[in-house]
């Protein structure tokens, strides 16, 4: 699925994630967590990536570990300028409330809501792969 870098397109993407989550009978609360993580990954790319093709490329996968552990995986790929995610400062409520800068929580939220998160980035762009177990 490819979405344009445009307002509220992240919500279009969440419908796909929800449909796949429902297909594997993932709980509504877990689907909400996947949806919010996907929203955060999309708006991070919209705001910071400076995508050369003005698009985000999304891939949704379903899989299973062993006999029981089904999962839903979402990959968000942008062809932007990339970033060094190891250099991103971890936000904290104390810093957020003490300063004028309230933003910068996207990656922290993604990592908190998803079970596995893998981020690779370079001059070619950024790929975030997020997995949630059922």
């Amino acid at each position: 699925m490819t979405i344009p870098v445009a307002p509220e397109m992240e919500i279009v993407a969440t419908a796909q994630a929800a449909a796949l989550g429902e297909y594997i009978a993932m709980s509504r609360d877990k689907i909400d967590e996947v949806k919010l993580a996907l929203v955060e990954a999309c708006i991070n790319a919209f705001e910071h990536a400076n995508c050369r093709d003005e698009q985000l490329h999304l891939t949704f996968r379903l899989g299973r570990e062993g006999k029981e552990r089904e999962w839903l995986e979402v990959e968000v790929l942008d062809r932007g300028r990339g970033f060094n995610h190891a250099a991103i400062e971890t936000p904290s409520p104390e810093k957020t409330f003490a300063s004028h800068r309230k933003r910068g929580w996207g990656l922290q939220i993604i990592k908190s809501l998803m079970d596995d998160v893998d981020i690779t980035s370079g001059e070619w762009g950024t790929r975030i792969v997020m997995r949630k177990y059922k």
Partner: protein
Amino acid sequence: MSETCKVSSERRGDVAILWTDGYINNQGGEEIAREAYSHLDQGVRALVLNLEKTRIVNSIGISILIEVLEKVMDCKGVLAFCGLTPTIDKTFRIMGLAQYAEIFPTQDEAMKKVTSQTA
């Protein structure tokens, strides 16, 4: 397709209740802020924000809610949230909103608490 958040509000005595319906992003957050600041300007010092018809609040929307909370605190007021989905509740706790504002399961519980604090 529009997922724009609708915000409505009502004043009950010294308390203003705000209801949201839909996705809270930057526009939704700003709409909530406008409504909240309007009540603060009219002297209200206790706000209850009922999110039972919202399933997604993104980090931009939450950052605006933090600004609203700070303004309420500057006015020596109180802000309470209710009707949160587990995911929104979790996100509010991650970002620290729960350290500075109380969260209640229902509007009645929130109203009871903030009313007692303004009495």
